[in-house]
């Protein structure tokens, strides 16, 4: 295996921003490598609300961000239609909400030419029966929902087809400098312990909340504050449109629908470290309580998953609510800090990921003397064949159409056959053939159905052994880490039926198999 690689641009961070930069540069013909310490969307890109902001949320607090959102919202609806669901959005106030804020809202929207239409309350409640009978004002905006997994998978897959290399499980641990330049970057595979070194003309730090840590490795500084946000996914879809609470940003004031579910959140908690980013029972109860004042059904809805992400917010941060800190992005050319070939891009939003990538790629190209202009404003992001298993609903449809009886269903809840598993394992990069269940989970629907991985983890592990994708005692750690990944999202939502399901899971995996006694390999 080749342990030393060379490239024009090394991009660190497999979230939306890094993926966007990889695609942008690849479209301009620049040779690049994208590395990610875990797997795609391990950071905020896999733990956000999935709201393609119209900008209305920021009209009062941050009109510049609002404008960026407004423009990117329209662009992504055109350029990445397969990743976007054009739901439309509402801003809704209920009794007790600040009257002045409600009255000023349309004016703020007008200031930046943001379409915003007041609608009749009875009309709104007819269209969205889940709205509270205490609703006092409703405005319609151009919000939409966006699938962050599909978005990032598509960007990376497209970049790979254009020649970009993507490596999972590779963590940047050291920068080796000569003079004012980073010469090589040392990386470690966290599964195998193997090391690698990459030589690049330019290094892009797109590590989101970790940007400060990575900058520090390079001997420079980025000032970030961490704000944790927690979200809950409901078992069924609550509304057709995005629903925002018409008040200054606070807990649990946005509900975003997508496919067959809705997502309610968020909270905002200042964190000192990035180590323990998990939802808590207190946050869950708070979200349910607050959300219910806008949509009472949320009090009794069934929830299938809770998750938390961290917003890296720029600049030391003030006293007030972290949500009032700018959502703009920060593109830092570290030449000013004495490192000529190091660039950091952090902050921002999923909605503006393409713009962030464009600005970053512009800077990179100006450095390496590439004059090709940005293509991502024009070339649409077409769904790739490789990403189809991640799309909700694809597997069952495929199954009913294909009728291949030898192609056994390994995930019976989401109807994922063994051929899909085999295909996905084939996409794993050449340096990391290790067939991890979590990696398969990011690229398909396994574990996301009602068994939450209890049974499919066992069927898939057995299959991977049969196909020599797993050997010795790897299966035990695979099953354990897959179930633990699901567990993170279940733990705070365990009451009623889910408690029954996890008891069965524990009876099987601990009571019967004794997996808790087996050390991880």
């Amino acid at each position, binding site marked *: 295996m080749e342990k030393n690689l060379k490239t024009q641009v090394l991009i660190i961070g497999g979230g939306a921003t890094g993926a966007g930069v990889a695609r942008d540069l690849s479209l301009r013909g620049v040779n690049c490598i994208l590395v990610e310490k875990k797997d795609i969307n391990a950071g905020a890109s896999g733990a956000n609300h999935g709201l393609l902001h119209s900008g209305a949320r920021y009209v009062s607090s941050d009109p510049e961000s609002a404008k960026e959102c407004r423009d990117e919202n329209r662009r992504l609806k055109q350029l990445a239609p397969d990743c976007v669901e054009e739901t439309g959005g509402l801003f809704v106030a209920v009794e007790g909400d600040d009257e002045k804020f409600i009255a000023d809202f349309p004016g703020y929207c007008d200031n930046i030419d943001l379409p915003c239409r007041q609608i009749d309350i009875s009309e709104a409640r007819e269209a969205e029966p889940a709205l509270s009978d205490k609703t006092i004002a409703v405005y319609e905006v151009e919000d939409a929902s966006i699938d962050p997994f599909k978005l990032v998978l598509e960007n990376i897959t497209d970049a790979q087809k254009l020649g970009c290399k993507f490596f999972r499980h590779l963590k940047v641990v050291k920068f080796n400098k000569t003079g004012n330049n980073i010469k090589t970057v040392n990386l470690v595979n966290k599964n195998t312990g193997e090391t690698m070194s990459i030589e690049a003309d330019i290094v892009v730090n797109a590590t989101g909340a970790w940007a400060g840590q990575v900058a520090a490795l390079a001997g420079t500084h980025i000032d970030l504050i961490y704000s944790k946000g927690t979200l809950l996914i409901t078992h069924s879809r609550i509304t057709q449109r995005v629903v925002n609470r018409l008040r200054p940003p606070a807990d649990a004031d946005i509900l975003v629908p997508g496919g067959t579910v809705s997502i309610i959140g968020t909270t905002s908690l200042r964190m000192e470290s990035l180590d323990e980013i998990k939802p808590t029972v*207190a946050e869950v109860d708070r979200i349910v309580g607050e959300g219910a004042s806008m949509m009472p059904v949320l009090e009794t809805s069934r929830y299938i998953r809770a998750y938390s992400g961290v917003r890296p917010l720029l600049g030391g941060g003030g006293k007030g609510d972290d949500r009032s800190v700018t959502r703009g992005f920060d593109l830092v050319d570290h030449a000013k800090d004495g490192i000529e070939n190091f660039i950091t891009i952090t902050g921002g939003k999923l909605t503006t990921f393409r713009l962030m990538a464009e600005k970053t790629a512009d800077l990179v190209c100006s450095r390496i003397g590439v004059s090709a202009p940005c293509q991502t404003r024009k070339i649409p992001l077409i769904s790739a064949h490789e990403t189809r298993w991640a799309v909700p609903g694809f597997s069952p449809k495929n199954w009913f159409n294909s009728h291949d009886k030898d192609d056994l269903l390994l995930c019976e809840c989401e109807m994922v056959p063994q051929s899909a598993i085999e295909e996905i394992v084939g996409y794993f990069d050449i340096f990391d053939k290790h067939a991890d269940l979590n990696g398969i989970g990011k690229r398909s629907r396994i574990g996301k159905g009602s068994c939450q991985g209890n049974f499919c983890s066992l069927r898939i592990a057995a299959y991977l052994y049969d196909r020599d994708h797993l050997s010795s005692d790897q299966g035990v750690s695979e099953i354990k880490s897959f179930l633990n990944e699901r567990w993170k999202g279940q733990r705070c939502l365990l009451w009623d039926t889910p408690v029954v399901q996890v008891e069965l899971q*524990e009876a099987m995996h601990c009571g019967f198999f004794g997996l*808790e006694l087996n050390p991880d390999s």
Partner: protein
Amino acid sequence: MTDINKIYSELTIIGTGMAGMAAAYFASKNKIETTQIGINSGIIYSSGFFDLMGVHPIEDRKTWENPWQAIDKLVSDIPDHPYARLGRSNIESAMDQFMEFMNEAERPYMVRKNQNTKVITPVGTVKSTYGVPRSMWAGAVALKEKHPCLIVDFWGLKAFSAKQITDMLMPRWPGIRPLRISFPAVGPSSDLYPEQMARSLEIEANRIQLAEAIRPDLGDAAALGLPAILGIYKPRQVREHLEELLGVDIFEIPTIPPSLPGLRLKEAIEAKITGRGVRLLSQKRVLSAAQNTDGTFELSIGDRATSEIQQIIGCNAVILAGGRFLGMGLHAGRKKIREPLFDLPVFQPEDRALWHQTNFFDPRGHQISQAGLEIDDSFRPTDLAGKPVYDNLFAAGSILAHQDWMRQKCGAGLSIATAYGAVKAFKKLNIEHPTSNIEF
């Protein structure tokens, strides 16, 4: 209301899980007139292994060769554990008698005197248990003696990989090999289910075909392991015939739940218990329970799905063996854990935030597993002051507090022993209530 059928019973057992079944057996053995009610239970999910006591303290992952020493240590460390209410001689009698019963029910179990036995699980881990179904025994022996061994699996049978099992075991058992074959005599279906395979093997010709398919690869193997598919009704005949055909010891490895060993247990025990005179209302649910002024209980019975009352049972005493959340003996709401039938006090963590650890496999186990009914020495659920809530209500099995059968590896043992304790306490208290004013 006149068309609702009312019956009377001296003792009613709520639950048809391991604990309910054991209680029914001990009650019938003691000639107690018994009615038993329940829906599906953990039994059909069970592996067939009878754990007695395997791990303590769980946070140290300490496994024990001798279950009795483990119980001694457990009882001294955790005096509230249900085993502490029994003492070794009671637990021993309970286990011995139940094993005898399993023998009678033609589902014989093998036990090493005062010793746990290591057995193979479908994911290739090795587990310590106490009672081993006879059909799995040769696997335990082969594992212990490291005999040359062939593990066979089948195209189309999901979640059972001989390769996985042998890969996992190879470091400690070099003489183990995998073999994959096509299962004979099941039509062109490529998705195989253990029950369908087991039915097919009840037919002699199919066993001969299976033996033919394995024979060429038998090599030096002295033992042969197969997924648990060797018959449903006549597992012994199926296995012995194959042993005779192939000339090696044959054993089953349980498949993932719900598996045949669980189903076989359920069918055999049910048949045997009803044969002994227990009135079994299976697939029925107790909808509500009330105490009459004379102290007897009145239970309303309905279907599993509807809440329509179909039958009333009057009884002198109840053994509640409703299980935990899976069995529905306990219910966890967003704020609190409740016992839904009698609204008995449930010992539980103060706050939902404490129910579950952040790591699913945390060796300490989850605090919610310690929740349940607290009991007195007569196995009667107690109130906060430690007094029995009812003189004539007993509890047994996993519904009890201060135990974690999943982590301590004491599932079947706990159910059997506490059922024994509850029946014994019922007998000792010799509950007699006036029944004259009840209409039947």
